[in-house]
Structure formats: structure tokens, C-alpha cells
């Protein structure tokens, strides 16, 4: 473990450069470049807002703010996008870098760190755009927004822990990635992002409370829309679960390391 941390420290510049390269290459050949990073999730938000808010007439209870639903939607999406990007990229992280792993010797733990860093950066841009929209529609910053960094840390921790496990498994059983693509869709709809939890029947809501992404997304909504503090207790539990998952992920990763290149 100590060796691994030392290796990470030694490769810190490499990790930073790679995050930079990652951002550059992803948009190298598209005209709008990095703007897509923000445009894509925002477009998604706008589509939901139009379809669900205007067409289906979805309204949030207990509010008179006409933009409340848009804010609710974008707040939840900010958290979800970060989590989803971490999971989908960690899933294929070793498979995608097969040629590198076969040809060069370097601490492999750098790869998930690079993915985390670049996902985090993407998310920050999105968050800035989102907050800009909030201010534009009259939802001005309040002190509760200061909880955002903590929410981001919890989300990254949970996404990375789960992603690392899935990423290692996917090297050996490629179906994991396929299955996860379906699960992530389901998971998105099982998390109150485009709808309010209140519209669900009682027993359903109970199941939802076991969903860590519910606590995370709803904390985003609490902080950004209602100006309430996040759900500390549940978030604390998620941190504990994430650390356990991270432990499992790391030991799985270390055990699997010798076999990994054999099957890539």
C-alpha cells in the first residue's frame, strides 16, 4: 500500500499531464471543442425540462418559483453526470488501455486516478455552467452552496470505488460492461432526478432510500434549490460503504494485476 502511494506520488506529474491530454484529445477534432463537455449534459437537462416540465406539466410541490423544476433537474443531473461518467469510464479503463498496458511498465493505479481527475474537471465545467444558469433564472447563491465540494468528494469516492471493481471484473468478463450499460439506465430512473420522490407510492420510496445515488442527488437538490443542508447521516454512511468498496476494489485490483495483461 505504501509502495503504491509512493508510486502515485512519483507519477503525479504524469497523472496531471494525462488529465490535460485527455481533455485535449477528447475534443481535438470537433469544432466546438471543450464546449461539448457542457453542452451535452445541459442539452439533456433542457430536453427533460421541456418534455417533462412543459409537455407533461411536471411541477414540484411546495414552490411558487416557475424555474424550480429546471433547477431541481439540473442540480440532480450535476451529481448524476459525475457518477455516471466515472462508472462508464472506469468500466473500460483497462480494456481501452490494453496496448499501453502490454507495452509499458508503469503503476497501473495511475489509470483510475487519471479518469477520476478528468471526470472531475469535466464536472466542474458543467457545474459552473449550471450555477450560471441558476443565477440567470434568479436562484442566487446561498451559503449552503459551500457544501458542494463535499458532495463532489462523496460522489467521486463512491463512483471510483464501484468503478474500480467493475473495471477489473470487466477485463475478465466483458459482459460486465454490457450489463452495466443497462443497469445505469435503470439506475438513473430509479433515482429521483427528473421526478420528485413525493410522487412515488410509499413502499417504493422506501426502496429508493437504499439507493446511495438518491441521497447524493437529493443532497445536491437540497443544497442548490432549497438552500437546506445535505443529508449528513446518509452521506456519512455512503462514505463508509465507499471506503469498504474501495478496499475491496484495491485488493481485487492487486490480486488481478498479474493476470490482467494475459487476457487483454
Amino acid at each position, binding site marked *: 500500500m505504501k509502495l503504491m502511494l509512493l508510486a502515485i506520488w512519483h507519477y503525479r506529474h504524469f497523472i496531471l499531464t494525462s488529465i490535460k491530454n485527455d481533455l*485535449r484529445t477528447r475534443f481535438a477534432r470537433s469544432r466546438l471543442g471543450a464546449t461539448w463537455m457542457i453542452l451535452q449534459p445541459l442539452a439533456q437537462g433542457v430536453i427533460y425540462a421541456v418534455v417533462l416540465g412543459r409537455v407533461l406539466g411536471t411541477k414540484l410541490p411546495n414552490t411558487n418559483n416557475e424555474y424550480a423544476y429546471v433547477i431541481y433537474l439540473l442540480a440532480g443531473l450535476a451529481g448524476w453526470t459525475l457518477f455516471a461518467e466515472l462508472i462508464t469510464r472506469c468500466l473500460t479503463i483497462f480494456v481501452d488501455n490494453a496496448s499501453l498496458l502490454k507495452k509499458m511498465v508503469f503503476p497501473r493505479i495511475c489509470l483510475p486516478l487519471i479518469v477520476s481527475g478528468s471526470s472531475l474537471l469535466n464536472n466542474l465545467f458543467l457545474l459552473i455552467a449550471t450555477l450560471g444558469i441558476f443565477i440567470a433564472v434568479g436562484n442566487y447563491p446561498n451559503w449552503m452552496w459551500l457544501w458542494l465540494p463535499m458532495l463532489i468528494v462523496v460522489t467521486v469516492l463512491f463512483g471510483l470505488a464501484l468503478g474500480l471493481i467493475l473495471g477489473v471484473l470487466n477485463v475478465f468478463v466483458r459482459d460486465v460492461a454490457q450489463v452495466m450499460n443497462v443497469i445505469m439506465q435503470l439506475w438513473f430512473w430509479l433515482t429521483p432526478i427528473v421526478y420528485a420522490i413525493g410522487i412515488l407510492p410509499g413502499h417504493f420510496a422506501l426502496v429508493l432510500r437504499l439507493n446511495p445515488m438518491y441521497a447524493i442527488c437529493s443532497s445536491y437538490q437540497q443544497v442548490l434549490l432549497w438552500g437546506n443542508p445535505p443529508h449528513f447521516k446518509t452521506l456519512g454512511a455512503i462514505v463508509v460503504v465507499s471506503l469498504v468498496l474501495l478496499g475491496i476494489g484495491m485488493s481485487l485490483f492487486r490480486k488481478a494485476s498479474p493476470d490482467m495483461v494475459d487476457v487483454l
Partner: protein
Amino acid sequence: MSAAALKVEGLGKAFREYSMEWRRMLGWFGHSFRPASETWVLRNISFQVFAGESVGIVGQNGAGKSTLLKLVTGTLRPTEGTIGVVGRVAAILELGMGFNPELTGRENARYTAGLMGMSPEQIDAIIPAVEAFAEIGEYFDEPLRTYSSGMQVRVAFSVVTAMRPEILIIDEALSVGDAYFAHKSMARIREFRKQGTTLLFVSHDPGAIQSLCDRAILLEHGKVLMDGEPSEVMDYYNALVAEKENATVEVKHLASGKAQTSSGTRDAVVETIALFNSSGEPVEFVNVGESVELRVRARLRRAVPRLVFGYMIKDRLGQPVFGTNTHHTGQALDGLADDQLVEYRVAFPMNIGPGSYSVSTALSSTETHLIDNYEWRDLALVFNVANQNRDLFVGTAWVPPRIEVRRV
């Protein structure tokens, strides 16, 4: 030449397949299942390479050469046995280095240097040298997807060898590049060797192995078949390639301490071979430029439809100096009877530089000894060339010059 730079003991690598992947996974946690199939690519490999030594790895496709290099480099982990490496290892395995096609050559070079564990200061320091050595001009700042494979090799080699490693591992990468760059990279490798770098080198090019290595290891079916002098190992390897079907490779140790390798069906054999000077006396020492005659008598042990005689003069390192055969000269014999004796007299001026040379002979039915190899004999004859009355010159060729010098 004191401490071992690389120590390989009882090395084995198996690729395992499981009927269910979760069985492999349970294996990581101590509960091992029998794999559905197990392929040992390498087994019981033990050897040592001393610091500063350079070793060529030869073998046929699938012999395990690349796997061995990957194990030493560390991208693959051994199934059994140990590998001890002293010092920094730099490796060029196969073509490309996992380059990113969207990034420029410069950015890829920085990225690869970072992967090798260099600090930003070190990277800044080496990049100008990398750019200069690769010699790809403006392309260095173009995205890699616009590169030819030769240009990629240039960048890859330049980065990996930007700092002298203690151990340099090269897997055939150089054969892809153009001749100019191949020369340039060979020169750099030689320079490293002088400074004490240990070299591990896989190649199908016998010339490269013989000119670069002090030692060669022949791998066959994942085992070390031979470990010794490059020229001997290459002779054995060539014989092995020719003899896939009727393996009758024979190694005879000559009084000089050298090993003579011969192979073939022995349907025709060289009975006598000798070198004669212009007065018809057998000679072992020949003056540069002297007219000589190589006389070879071959006996047929069985009737053969066609007989081609070939010979090759090789230098001390086993590099070919000159060779041809009677197929190319249009003198192949057809329909030979059993027990027929054939004499070949090959007259030529000894236009080669001073040194020790050997002659290999081949008797076959076509121009290549890979089909119907009756007999292939390395070190059939050894002779020396001395410069007795010419101006001093170096090299294996005697190309008499006429130099004009004028003050103008």
C-alpha cells in the same frame, strides 16, 4: 562484467483458460481451480546476463521470445520462477508505444517519457534531443495519426533511448524503420554498450545479432536450446530452420574450439574442401587480392534429380561477405546417379580485407537450402587473409582506390 544485471531462474509462463472466469477470480483469493486449459509458453528458463553484456534472443515464431522479453520488462508477470533485474530497464516492445493518435509527436514523446517515470524537468531536458534524433522535421508537431509507421518507430526509439538505461530491451522494433534510421539507432545502441548498458535483443536478422551481441540464446518450444557464441547459435538456428522435417543437425567441435554445424539429408556430401593459390598449392594464409581457387568435391550417396552447389564466405562474426550458388550461375547439374563424384573449382581474386574467414557450403536441389537440403555445412573451411603488400586499409572488402590529390 562482474555483477549479473539480469538473473532469470526457473522462469515459466503459462496462459490459462478457465471454463468459467469466476474460477480464475476465486483463484486470486486462495481457492484455486484446475484451469480448463493451460499453455506453457516458457518453462524452466534459467540464465544470467552480466552487466554490459549484450545477448540476442533467437528462435522460430512461437518459440517464446517476445514473451520472455515482456516478462523481463515487467508487462507480463511470471507464472513460476524469478527474474532479478538490476538498474533501470527501457524497452521497445513491438511496434508503437501505445501512442495517442490525436496528440502530436512532441506530446506523445512527453507522455511516454512520463510513463517511464521521468520528472517534468527531465522531460524538458530530453525533448530537444528526442526531436533532433528522430529527425522527422515539422511532423514532430503534427498529430500522430498523420505519421507513417517508420516515423512512429523513430519517435518511439528516440524517446526510449533518450536516457541511457542500464538494461535496454528491443523486440524487433528496428526492423520496421528505414535503413538510414536503422543505422543511426544501431550506432546509438553500440554507444550505450560502450558505456556499459546491458542489451537484450530479439531479431530475425542474423546480421544484427552477430554484429551486436556477444552471446545468443536460442529458444525452441519455450526452452533454452542453446546458449553461446552468436555465430554458433545462428548456424545452429539456420540449420534448425532448414531441418524442420528431417532434423539431423550435427555439431562437431573443431580443434580450434569452434563448433561446426552441419545438417541435411546427406544424400550428397562434401568430401573434401580446400583453398589453392595460383601455383596450385593448398593455402591457409592468403594475401589481399591474390588469385585463389576453392576446390570442393561432393559425393552423391543416392541418385538425385538436381544438384546445386553453393558456398558463402563469412567473416569472423559470421556475417556473410560473399556467397552464390550454381543455380544462380546457371550450372546446376541434372539427373545425377548414385555414388557420382562432382568437383567444383571456384576461382576468384581474394578481394577482401585482412582477417579470419570461414566458408560454408550447401548442397541442395534448388537455390534455397530450405527445400531438399542435402547438406549444409558451416565452417567447412577456415582461412586467413593478410595484407602483405597493399597500403593499409580497414574493412572486409578490398576496393582498390585511385586517389587523386591536388593542391588547388
